[in-house]
């Protein structure tokens, strides 16, 4: 299945958001997630299923002003 992660097209095996984080090696890191521009809580990642063409954002703490 092809989805977009942080603006890049990716072929992934993961069926849900939690599995996607595992597949992309984000597990155990401080990240926040959004699916198709809507926030997905950490506790909801497992039940958030992915579909072809979905847009996923995975954000992490960074410097800011």
């Amino acid at each position, binding site marked *: 299945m092809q989805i977009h992660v942080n603006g890049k097209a990716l072929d992934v095996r993961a069926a849900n958001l939690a599995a996607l984080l595992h597949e992309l*090696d984000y597990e155990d890191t401080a990240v926040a997630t959004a699916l198709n521009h809507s926030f997905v809580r950490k506790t909801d990642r497992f039940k958030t299923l992915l579909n072809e063409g979905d847009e996923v954002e995975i954000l*992490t*703490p960074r410097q800011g*002003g």
Partner: protein
Amino acid sequence: MAASPHQDRLKLYGAEFSSRLLAGTAQYPSPAILSQSIAAARAEIVTVSLRRESGGSRAGEGFWALIRELGVRVLPNTAGCLSVKDAVTTAQMAREVFDTPWIKLEVIGEEDTLQPDVFGLVEAASILTREGFQVFPYTTEDLVAAEKLLGAGCEVLMPWGSPIGSGRGLNNPYALRSLRAHFPGVPLIVDAGIGAPSHAAVAMEMGFDAVLINTAIAKAGDPVQMARAFALAVEAGRLGYNADLMQARDMAAPSTPVIGRAFSDRAHA
């Protein structure tokens, strides 16, 4: 007006702080200089952001560990968001990662000046306050926008001094004074555009509650020394405000008593 330093604390959404200098964390030459600069600025609140990270690089994790070591309060921002939807979603993501209800809300309306979209800002602030956020809106000095933001539940306002990163200082002192006068009980933090310690001192002398500095420290030749300069300027400006500045006047007024001056019985030639 006069307050002892321990009484004169900055109050933001029920939390109290000694320092009136908020520091940004972007653009520093190195993590070590960032840490030293935050310490030299005596900042107790720092702004942070959320950004995309490529899988496995873990740069964000290292940054977050560094900030936690500083023992400061974090104020996450929604920097760069151009729509209400993006700003709200980013705020929600930030609350989870940084574990704080605080959010510096940016909804940018114009990309050359990074001027806030005050209409979007009010809409986003309304949504976020209903969701329990404590919103710090980055706004213009517009009085009506300020009133609407307060109506939307904001208890703090962050008017710009001048465009982000410009270093121009306080572009519109008249409007800033007017804002200060209209909302005497509201914490007002001048954000953006402050380029020199003197700019920060002026903002504090005008009665603003705090300033937020990033580029002026981070991009200085010696960021740590500049951070200390800003800390002193903010403190001096606040002391000056508390001590009640004299009124400016157009004509001279002799500071030395005129009575008893030598030759005072002699008429002007």
